């Protein structure tokens, strides 16, 4: 009816065209196909939304039976409700903007067509993810976006660091997917179906233990995709990919899939309080943890990457404390401002000829004022400056957290302060002071700036324009009222402003101070600067033992040593027996005769005497 399939199909067609014959196409056509397909999808989303009352009455579509075996019956199903609608808008909308931006950003790259093919493929999978009508189709998208993320992180495949980061992303995600797939298996054995409708209808009646198990496994999946503790490690490395990729995949859309899934599965989570608590704790811990790392980084994209991890932690906090709609709201606003931050960072990097270290920037306000302006908008939003989009969503989460447990609120507020500090630290370091880099910095073209402006508007006013909790009303259980909401709001605003002020003091007014503080902190600073050496710990605790163990113990030891050793040993022993026979076979007639006589004696004993005794 609404041809929902058209939404993912459009980018997919774009992928096919660019992927198969893109190399031979002129750049303009590639652009047209790539951007056009996504924009058309966006338009089709708008059309569908408009026609279907923006998902107020959910739409179903069943296209074909995908997997059927006995009781297992999974169709290629789509399902559109209000939550889907929001996600569709975010994905296609931001996606369109980033595609446009990328035409400018990637203009001089080799493998231009390849980049857009991947990007379109990503859109296809992402749209599948959000459109899915059952968990398995969601999983298709889930894995598919992981694949595209892998491909795009490793886009510069000649660089070893890039491909390694891609592998890391894929493999860490696989660990999460391990949880997700187990959740599906458990779900199927519990509900006999993977259909959202059936599962959610049946969930309330099932034992809490099973639901908790399912929820925990899904959480594991979500931590992988959405870069939460303990599986967040891939995301900072993912910045090896081109900046538009960081913006689209590793900030705005894919990484939020975990939040989307948890919200989508709210019925299950709500019946598994322990899992909810875990979600909140994981989210909060990640938020603080990543924020502290963000304070110390110099690579502009790394700062934003840790900020993304931190902000995703916020969303999980929201989901965990029961404020699903607040989580989704933050998801959306974060998509606006974080995409903007990344694209802006891209613009800065573009301006500085590829430099990413902020210590080699500075003073860019003179050279790239437009970029500075839009980045300021985004920075305000993420700092929770009153009225900006980030302010509303973050406040909603913090309030809900207070309602759940006040200490979470306080931790959240401190994190908000840190967030404001490091984002603005980056801002000051980039745009204020003197230019310390090489070459001559320049402003970006309008193909890049245009999307930035749109995003800036959304960052500033997105919160007002789209009141997600209101839109989603009825989908999730309402939050209980919290007393003194105004005061809480004030505290969080104050934290944000304090952060901005402090960063201004340290990086504009008294630029000597940061060095002194780092010197004073000494080892602790080094630890945080080295990202708590988590990667190294993982390497030492998991990766190295696994590889070395496989090599030394399993391959050389078990396979070649024990098993093949046994097999060859049997052969060797067999020859050994042959050797003994050779000894007996001496060639001497008398000994042969003796053997015959011995045989005769034995036979006589066995047949005659043996029988005789019987």
């Amino acid at each position, binding site marked *: 009816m609404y041809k929902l399939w058209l939404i993912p199909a459009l980018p997919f067609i774009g992928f096919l065209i660019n992927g198969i014959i893109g190399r031979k196409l002129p750049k303009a056509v590639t652009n047209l196909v790539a951007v056009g397909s996504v924009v058309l999808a966006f338009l089709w989303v708008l059309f569908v939304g408009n026609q279907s009352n923006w998902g107020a009455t959910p739409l179903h579509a069943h296209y074909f039976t995908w997997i059927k075996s006995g009781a297992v019956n999974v169709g290629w199903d789509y399902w559109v409700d209000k939550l889907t609608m929001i996600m569709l808008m975010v994905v296609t909308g931001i996606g369109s903007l980033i595609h446009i931006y990328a035409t400018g950003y990637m203009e001089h790259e080799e493998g231009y067509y390849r980049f857009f093919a991947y990007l379109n493929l990503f859109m296809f999978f992402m749209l599948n993810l959000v459109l899915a009508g059952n968990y398995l189709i969601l999983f298709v998208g889930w894995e598919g976006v992981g694949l595209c993320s892998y491909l795009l992180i490793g886009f510069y495949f000649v660089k070893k660091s890039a491909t390694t980061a891609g592998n890391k992303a894929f493999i860490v995600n696989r660990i999460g997917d391990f949880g997700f797939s187990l959740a599906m298996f458990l779900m199927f054995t519990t509900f006999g179906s993977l259909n959202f409708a059936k599962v959610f209808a049946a969930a309330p009646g099932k034992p809490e233990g099973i639901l908790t198990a399912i929820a925990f496994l899904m959480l594991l999946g979500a931590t992988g995709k959405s870069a939460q503790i303990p599986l967040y490690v891939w995301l900072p490395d993912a910045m090896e990919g081109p900046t538009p990729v960081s913006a689209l995949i590793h900030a705005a859309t894919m990484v939020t899939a975990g939040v989307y899934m948890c919200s989508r599965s709210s019925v299950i989570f709500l019946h598994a309080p322990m899992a909810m608590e875990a979600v909140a704790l994981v989210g909060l811990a990640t938020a603080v943890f990543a924020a502290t790392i963000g304070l110390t980084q110099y690579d502009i994209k790394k700062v934003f990457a840790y900020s993304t991890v931190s902000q995703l932690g916020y969303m999980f906090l929201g989901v965990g404390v029961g404020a699903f709609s607040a989580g989704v709201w933050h998801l959306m606003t974060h998509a606006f401002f974080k995409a903007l931050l990344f694209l802006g960072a891209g613009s800065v990097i573009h301006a500085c000829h590829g430099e990413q270290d902020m210590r080699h920037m500075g003073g860019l306000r003179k050279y790239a004022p437009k970029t500075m302006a839009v980045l300021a908008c985004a920075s305000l939003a993420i700092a929770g400056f009153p009225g900006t989009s980030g302010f509303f969503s973050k406040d909603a989460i913090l309030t809900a957290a207070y309602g759940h447990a006040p200490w979470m609120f306080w931790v959240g507020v401190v994190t908000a302060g840190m967030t404001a500090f490091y984002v603005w630290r980056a801002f000051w370091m980039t745009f204020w002071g003197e230019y310390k880099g090489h070459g001559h910095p320049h402003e970006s073209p309008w193909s890049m700036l245009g999307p930035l402006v749109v995003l800036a508007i959304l960052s500033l006013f997105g919160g007002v324009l789209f009141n997600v909790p209101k839109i989603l009303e009825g989908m999730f259980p309402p939050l209980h009222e919290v007393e003194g909401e105004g005061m809480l709001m004030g505290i969080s605003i104050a934290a944000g402003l304090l952060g901005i002020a402090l960063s201004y003091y340290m990086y504009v007014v008294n630029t000597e101070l940061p060095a002194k503080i780092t010197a004073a902190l000494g080892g602790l600073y080094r630890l945080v600067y080295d990202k708590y050496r988590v990667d190294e710990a993982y390497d030492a605790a998991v990766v190295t033992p696994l590889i070395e163990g496989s090599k030394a113990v399993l391959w050389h030891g078990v396979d070649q040593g024990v098993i093949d050793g046994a097999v060859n040993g049997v052969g060797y022993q067999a020859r050994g027996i042959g050797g003994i026979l*050779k000894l007996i076979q*001496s*060639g*001497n*007639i*008398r000994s042969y*005769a003796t053997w015959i*006589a011995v045989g005769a004696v034995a036979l006589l004993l066995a047949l005659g005497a043996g029988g005789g005794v019987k």
Partner: protein
Amino acid sequence: MDPSQALEMLKNGVPTSWYLTLSALLFSIGVAGFMIRRNIITVFMCIELMLNAVNLSFIAFAHQHKQVSGHLFTFFVMVVAAAEAAVGLAIILTVFKNRSTLNIDEINTLKN
């Protein structure tokens, strides 16, 4: 053996089993000879000894069964033994011609 038995024996003759035992003893001696003698011809003679031992059994059994077929058997064994002797000695001759030895222990190049 008490006297009455001995007397009876003198009257009836010798128990057949004595002949059979003699045959067994000769056979065993033949076997032993095969195993310990080193001259090929002597070894071959030990085989003849074994055959003779068996012949004695045949004749003894023939007597017991009062049949002539045992005798015939012995007769055929003799023929066979004669043929074997001709062939065997011819083989021994060729061996000696090629190796100039009759030591059975030295005929051991084919082994293992």
